[in-house]
């Protein structure tokens, strides 16, 4: 009873925070002068140009997804399971591009490869003409988005590898080498994580507008953006966002068909945690070189460009003076949002994973629907719903930013919770139930500790996405309460490049410090779970 009541409350909360604002936008897009009308949808996909844009978006997101999976999954396996040195260092390094809004990375690449970028000073104008031509277009977009989203499959692979029962792999060793174990045991067991990362990367790349816009590659989200920015036509903008959502729902359907039959096992022994199961032997040298080269190209070089640009003490003093308060605000909002995101995500994840209420599929789809919607649609929806005299205590305070993050990013923590909970055998909860433990006790003493490392990963993901958000924050932040990424964006217009670069470096640091703390906590929790 308590379970049903509580989960119903969670669904109501979700409806209130995320669905209602967007629903109000959708309904408005279907009403013209008081009557039902599809006029706003008239131009969506009706011209050849729209289909071309859709094709561009599909090509870009497919390439980015494929590349990040093909490289991110083995990279995750190498960094989690092999005896390669500096694994933790590489893990942190590869995560850095995900910490910044993708637009910043595109600007950094432009500073490097543009016709008067740093490369031009080293390699001369002919080389930079070629790199500049490549940067502006599909290859440049793929490169930037690949570097930004690579950590997603990498991290999810690592998280899922950490949940495999090592005895299965040890048993495999008796009959096969590590390649065989990878192929027949490890990869099939982490398939849900790979699928989840594929879906997330595809959705993120499909909805991405700032990088393709900067690098001159027309994609479908430009339509919704144009309706907002050039025409101030909220109805048409909402209509133009709907195809993005349809693609997401199709992906979700494909995922559910793919993963219907998967089962999971948790790891029972502590000693297996530390022993790397892949001894690289003669492969170590070239693999280490390859990983180093990749890190150098996609992380060190662009970050170095920022570091070189910001290499003045005054830039950092000015940055702290300009944006010290924004940095504190960002950290505060991201901390609170991540904690709420992981809480809400855990319970919606529980609802979906256990099919605890009849509406579990609606909850799952709604969350992904919100994640796929352009931030502007959610932002305007939130304004329409919350900006009244009676709800000013929410709208005129930072609470509205947190609500925006919950609406947009609960899908991430929910999905991560689903996969984390799937690794806990139902028998454990059932045993506790038989022993007389109530639902809340089972949640807090059985499920949360066992899914702990995955939940911490969820917290970190929620923290990163909240901290780097600009789309929603930009539209709803109360006057005078801008966050650091918003501050950087507003200063980018005619602000000094040194100052902007220094702010980006501060932002990276702001994420890495709590990230490191969390990583330490996750490692400790793994011991607990496994012992």
């Amino acid at each position, binding site marked *: 009873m308590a379970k049903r009541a509580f989960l119903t409350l969670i669904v109501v909360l979700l409806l209130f925070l995320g669905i209602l604002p967007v629903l109000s936008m959708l309904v408005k897009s279907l009403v013209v002068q008081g009557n039902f009308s599809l006029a706003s949808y008239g131009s969506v996909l009706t011209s050849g140009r729209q289909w071309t844009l859709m094709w561009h978006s599909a090509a870009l997101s497919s390439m980015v997804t494929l590349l990040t999976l093909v490289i991110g999954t083995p990279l995750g396996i190498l960094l989690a399971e092999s005896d390669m040195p500096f694994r933790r260092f590489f893990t942190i390094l590869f995560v850095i591009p995900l910490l910044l809004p993708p637009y910043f990375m595109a600007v950094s690449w432009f500073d490097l490869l543009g016709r008067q970028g740093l490369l031009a000073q080293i390699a001369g104008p002919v080389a930079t003409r070629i790199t500049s031509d490549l940067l502006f277009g599909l290859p440049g977009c793929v490169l930037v988005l690949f570097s930004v989203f690579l950590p997603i499959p990498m991290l999810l692979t690592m998280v899922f590898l950490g949940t495999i029962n090592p005895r299965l792999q040890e048993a495999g060793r008796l009959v096969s080498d590590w390649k065989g174990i990878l192929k027949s045991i490890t990869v099939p067991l982490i398939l849900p994580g790979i699928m989840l990362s594929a879906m997330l990367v595809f959705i993120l790349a499909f909805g991405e507008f700032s990088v393709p816009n900067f690098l001159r590659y027309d994609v479908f989200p430009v339509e919704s953006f144009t309706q907002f920015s050039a025409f101030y036509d*909220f109805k048409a903008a909402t209509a133009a966002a709907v195809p993005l959502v349809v693609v997401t729902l199709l992906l979700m359907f494909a995922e559910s068909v793919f993963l219907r039959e998967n089962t999971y096992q948790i790891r029972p022994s502590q000693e297996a945690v530390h022993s790397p199961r892949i001894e690289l032997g003669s492969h170590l040298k070239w693999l280490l070189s390859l990983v180093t080269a990749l890190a150098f190209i996609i992380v060190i070089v662009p970050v170095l460009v920022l570091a070189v640009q910001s290499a003045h003490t005054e830039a950092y003093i000015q940055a702290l003076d300009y944006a010290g308060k924004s940095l504190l605000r960002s950290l505060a909002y991201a901390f609170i949002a991540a904690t709420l995101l992981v809480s809400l995500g855990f319970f919606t994840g529980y609802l979906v994973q256990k099919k605890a209420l009849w509406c579990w599929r609606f909850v799952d789809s709604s969350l992904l629907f919100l994640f796929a919607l352009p931030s502007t649609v959610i932002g305007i929806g939130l304004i329409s719903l919350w900006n009244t005299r009676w709800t000013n205590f929410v709208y005129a305070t930072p609470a509205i930013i947190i609500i925006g993050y919950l609406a947009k990013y609960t899908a991430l923590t929910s999905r991560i919770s689903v996969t984390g909970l799937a690794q806990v055998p139902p028998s454990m909860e059932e045993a506790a139930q038989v022993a007389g433990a109530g639902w809340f006790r089972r949640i807090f003493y059985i499920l949360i500790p066992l899914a702990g490392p995955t939940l911490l990963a969820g917290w970190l993901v929620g923290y990163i996405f909240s901290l780097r958000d600009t789309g929603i924050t930009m539209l709803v932040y109360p006057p005078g309460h801008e966050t650091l990424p*918003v501050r950087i964006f507003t200063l980018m217009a005619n602000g000094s490049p040194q100052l902007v670069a220094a702010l980006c470096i501060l932002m990276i640091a702001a994420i890495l410090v709590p990230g490191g703390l969390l990583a330490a906590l996750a490692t400790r929790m793994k011991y607990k779970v496994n012992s």
Partner: protein
Amino acid sequence: MKKTILAIFAILVLVMAGYTVLHFTKEPSTKVSTVTVYVSEDQVFSEPILKDFEKDTGIKFRAVYDTEEAKSTGAMNRLIAEKDNPQADVYWANEPIRAEVLKQKGISESYFSPNARDIPARFKDPDGYWTGFSARARVLVVNNHVKDVPQSILAYTDPRWKGKSVITNPLFGTTTSHIAALFVLWGDKRAKAFMNAMKQNRTAISTNNGESADFVTAGQYDFSLVDSDDAVNRIRQGKSVKMVYPDQGENDTGCFIVPNATVLIKGGRHPKAARKLIDYLLSRETERKLAFADCAQIPLHPGVEIPSELKPIDKIKTMQINYADVAKKMVEIQPFLKTWMGL
């Protein structure tokens, strides 16, 4: 160890929660007079002025700034969406066209500031819904390696510069206003022919004026039509570019001028403070500060001191245009521009 980390984590969460709660409690109880302003002018230029206002008057300001990445339309979208319960008291528009849109949508309110008496009538709404100040000129930024410097926007259609020019996406910002002004001035037929010729001359499209100026600075293109602040900014940074006021000949159309505009928001919560802020923005002193700032904006009050890079407004041949007509034309030509952009 684990307990320690958990304790640190819990403390951090509590501190952050406390910080946010402070915001909740602080806002309504404050007795200091405040004004909320939404700003489309770049933050680096507008914030120092607002801080001076706070220092000089004791009225605290709370601001929402726009970003160039969002085409400076975030504030406009918010103003429109917040129409029924406005949060802003004043809108500092970076061009009068947005102010005209707000007037048409019933979001603004009339106010004739005593500080605007000297400002020429063509830079003010006759009904008082917006008042112009500190203008940008639409200029050509030209790379110094170009020997035969273009002197007119018609250079975009000149085969000499085929594939060598760049213009900002005409669907957004001051470029839209400029194109709309050409439609008003020339008529649809000639303006459309100009746009099509520009396209045939392989003019590249950038996402914003700053980026256009950067492309020219980088030598990727020879010239671009940008706002004067973008050009002056690069010149002051020591980049190898020059600024040309286009179409200054006797029979030429003149240079399109884009003033900032102050707008009083209808139903704002601090109408008194809002009027004081508008008066402050429209003062000669603010215009002087904006002229000497990196944005190098041209004062509209006569006789205000200006830096050497700028020409006084009365020495520039300006395009004779009615901004209300431009705003109307801008809406009319959006389908054409969308098609022109291939959308």
